[in-house]
């Protein structure tokens, strides 16, 4: 996935990727990533968990606007099935 991300960024469109295998992402070095130690097939979390899915997307957008060093991976503090998303304050607005 990182290879596709690199190609898109190279074409002039800013990108951010979610990764669940940190080791691969460290090697492929796409421009901006957020890492979740979550099971395969669940980059946005659990089915039907709107608040959780939303939190991941907003963190991805935060990474898009804050990462300034190419290849940075941000480790998110969301533990699988052990994080309370209800009380988190959502990030934003997203401006350069």
């Amino acid at each position, binding site marked *: 996935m990182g290879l596709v991300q690199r190609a*898109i960024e190279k074409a002039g469109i800013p990108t951010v990727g979610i990764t669940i295998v940190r080791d691969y992402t460290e090697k492929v070095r796409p421009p901006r990533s957020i890492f979740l130690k979550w099971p395969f097939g669940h980059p946005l979390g659990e089915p039907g968990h709107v608040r959780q899915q939303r939190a991941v997307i907003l963190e991805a957008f935060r990474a898009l606007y804050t990462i300034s060093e190419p290849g940075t991976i941000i480790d998110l503090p969301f533990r699988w099935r052990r994080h309370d998303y209800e009380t988190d304050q959502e990030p934003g607005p997203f401006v*350069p």
Partner: protein
Amino acid sequence: MSILTRFKHRLIARLITHFPGLADRFTAAYQPWESGEPTPWTTVCKPLNRCRVALVTTAGVHHAAQEPFNMHDSDGDPSFRPIDAATIRDDYTITHDYYDHSDAEQDLNIVLPLDRLREMQQEGVIGEVAERHYSFMGHIDGRHLVTLIKQSAPQVAEALRRDRVDAVLLTPA
């Protein structure tokens, strides 16, 4: 690749879901492509509430009428499928033997979060959701890596440019 081998891959994928510790052994066995080239970089210059946002996934999602990804080649399938945001929710299928997609079949948003992006468009968090998104199968290796790097990834990048997309979120499986 035989039916038995495909069955084995799917069985391993299910086992990994139930015993996540097993995943480390499989990821350690695979060596991703490493580049000597510097990481490409494009500066974000628009506020998000004026950006057209597209998704690119490697979760093997496609429309039911599209040709499934080739699961018989051990090097994977480097091709991609354009995804129509307006209709995918009602006619999607997932062709990918290397992860357990039973949860994604219940809720597409865990790999392709179009409903969440639409909500964010309504709230004014993002400018708009692109009409077209792009899907790969991932798990690409050997000779198909070159096809991906030289052909299909640049083709998708070009298509996103034609679609006047301002920012891309990539989701794995």
